[in-house]
C-alpha cells in the first residue's frame, strides 16, 4: 500500500457528500488518478468511486486470530498435559473438550488485537500532524465539510499546468474554496 503523497496537490472544499461524489467522478474523468477525499462520516460508495483497492487487512486479522487460537491451545496443553500433569477426579490426561472454551477466547482476543493494531498500521495512525491540517478551516472536515484532493503531475503532465487545470475543474464544480497545497521535498 502506497501512502497518498504528492509534491503539488489541488484541494477543493464542498458542503455536501453529493457534491463530493460528483467532484470525484469529474476529476476521475479528467484523468486525475491519485485522489483522496476527506469527510466527516464514511460515505457509502466513496471508496469505490475513488477506485481504492481493498486492503489485505481482513487477511491479516484472520492470521492474528489463528495465532491466538494456536497460542491459547498450546499454553493449556503445555501447562496441564506437558509441564505439570495434574490428574484430578479421574479426568482425561489430554482433555480436548475442556480446552475449547479458552481456545475460543484466545482466537477472539488475537483477532481483535489484530484488528485494532492492523487498523493503526493500515491507516498510519497515530499521525498527530499532517500537511492538510495547515489549511485554514480544515477543522470543519470532522464536522460538516468535505474536501477532495488531487495529486498533480504525472510523467506526461507538468505539475503546475495540471494544478491550474484541476483548480478550474473544481471551481466549475462549485467548490466553496480551492487551495493549492505544496509540500517541500
Amino acid at each position, binding site marked *: 500500500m502506497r501512502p497518498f503523497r504528492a509534491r503539488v496537490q489541488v484541494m477543493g472544499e464542498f458542503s455536501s457528500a453529493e457534491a463530493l*461524489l460528483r467532484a470525484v467522478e469529474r476529476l476521475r474523468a479528467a484523468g486525475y488518478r491519485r485522489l483522496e477525499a476527506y469527510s466527516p462520516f*464514511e460515505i457509502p460508495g466513496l471508496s469505490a468511486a475513488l477506485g481504492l483497492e481493498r486492503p489485505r487487512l481482513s487477511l491479516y486479522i484472520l492470521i492474528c486470530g489463528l495465532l491466538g487460537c494456536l497460542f491459547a491451545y498450546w499454553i493449556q496443553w503445555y501447562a496441564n498435559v506437558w509441564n505439570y500433569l495434574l490428574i484430578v477426579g479421574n479426568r482425561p490426561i489430554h482433555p480436548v473438550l475442556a480446552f475449547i472454551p479458552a481456545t475460543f477466547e484466545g482466537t477472539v482476543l488475537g483477532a481483535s488485537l489484530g484488528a485494532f493494531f492492523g487498523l493503526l498500521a493500515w491507516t498510519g495512525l497515530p499521525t498527530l500532524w499532517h500537511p492538510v491540517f495547515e489549511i485554514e478551516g480544515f477543522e470543519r472536515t*470532522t464536522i460538516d465539510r468535505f474536501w477532495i484532493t488531487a495529486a498533480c503531475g504525472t510523467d506526461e503532465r507538468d505539475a503546475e499546468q495540471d494544478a491550474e487545470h484541476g483548480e478550474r475543474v473544481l471551481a466549475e464544480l462549485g467548490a466553496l474554496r480551492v487551495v493549492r497545497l505544496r509540500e517541500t521535498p
Partner: protein
Amino acid sequence: MASPAPLPSEAPPLHERLVIRNLPDNAALTQQLLSPIWRGGSRWWLWPLLFCSSGLLALLFFVLIFYTFAEGIGVWGNNIPVAWAYAITDFVWWIGIGHAGTFISAFLILLNQKWRASINRIAEAMTLFALVNAMIFPVLHLGRPWFFYWLIPYPSAMRVWPNFRSALPWDVAAISTYFTVSLLFWYVGLIPDLAAVRDSAPGAIRKRIYGLLALGWRGASRHWQRYRIAYIILAGLATPLVISVHSIVSLDFSIAQLPGWHSTIFPPYFVVGAIYSGFAMVLMLILPIRSAFGLHDVITERHLDVLGKMLLVMGMLLAYSYVCEAFTAYYSGNQFEQYTYLFARPMGPYAWVYWSMTLCNVLTPQIFWWSYLRTNVVALFCASVVIFVAMWAERFMLIVTSLNRDFLPSSWHFYAPTWVDWGILIGSLGLFCFLFFAFLRWAPFIPLSELKRTRFELRREAEHGLP
C-alpha cells in the same frame, strides 16, 4: 455509480423521521451534541452533585473491600455450604448487564439496523463500566485475593499452572477477553468523534488532549475504508464472544453436580437473562439522558418502542427457560432435582425471593404488548427498574437456594447477608454511576459520525428507493 440528486430542503421523509427526527444540519447537530462537554449542558450545576454522591458510594465500595481484605472473608455472610453468595450474584448480574451493550452495538451493526446509531455508544460504555465491576467480584471472592495472578498462565519457578480442566480459568479467559474487546470496540468507535471534539474544542489544552486521543484522525477516505473493515470485523468477533462469555459463566454452575445447577439449559438461559437485564439497564440510562440533554430528536419513540419489544421478547424467552427448567427437573425422576425445583425453591426459606422474582420477570414485560406503553417513558422506566432488581434476585435465588439445601439435610444451612454484603453491592452501583457520569461529562456519548452517515443513507434511500 449514478450521481445522486440534490437533497430535498423540506421536511425529511417519513421513515427517516422515525429513526431520527428533524435534526438540524451537521454543524448545528455537532454543536448541540458536543457543547455539553464544554459547558456542562443546561443543568451544569447538577454535575458536582452527581459526582459527589456517586463518588461517596464508590468510596464506600473501596472502604468495604479494604475491610474485607483486612478482616478476612468472614465479614460476609458466606459460610459452608453457601460459599458463593453475594459476590457471585453481583458478578453474574454485572456481567449480564454488560451483554446488552455488545448486543446493541455488534449484533445490530451486522444486521444493518439503523436505529442502533443513536444509542450504541451509551450501551457500549455501560458494558465497559459494568465489566469493571464484574471483574472485581470474583477477585474479592478468591479468599486470598492478593494471589489473583495465579489464575494467569505464566511461567513461575513453582510450576504452578491454572488447571484448565476446571471452569474457573475459562472464566478468566472469557472475562479478560470480553473486557479487552469491548474496550477496543468502544475506542475504535470513538476515534472519529474524538476528532470532532478536538476540532470544535475551545482552547489549546483541550484541543491537545482530545487531539492525542483522536490519534490525528483527519477523515481521509482511505482511513474510512480501513476503519469500516476493522469495525465490522470487531463487531463480527464481539457477537459470538458475547454469547460465549455468559455461556462460560453458566458452565461454572452447570459443571457442578448440585441440584438446580447441573443442567444443559444453562448457557442459553444465562445469555437470555443477561441480555434481558442489560436492556433494562440501557433503558434506565437512556431515558434520563434523553430528557436531561433534550435528545428527543436523536433518541426517538422508535428507539423506545424497539427496546420495549426487546424486553418483551427476552422476557418471554426467560419465562420459557423457567418452565423448561422446572419441567426437566420433574421429568428427570431424580429426587434431588425434583426437591430443589418443586419444593425448596417455591416453598423453602427463600420462597418469597423465588415468587417475587419469577412474577416480576415474567409479568412485567407483558405490559409491552400495548404499543402505547412501549413509548411511555414512565412505564418503560418503572418496568426497567423492576426487571433490573428482579434479575439480581434471580441470580441470588439460583445460587443460594441450590447451595443452602443440597443432598444431605444435615448439611443444610440458612444464609443471610451482612451489612458488608449490602454495602459492597450498593457501592458497586456507585462506582458504575461515577464512571458513567465521567463518560457523559467528557466524552461524545452520541456517535456523531454514525448519526451523520445514517441520515445521509436514509435520505439517499428516500431519493432512490430502498437498495
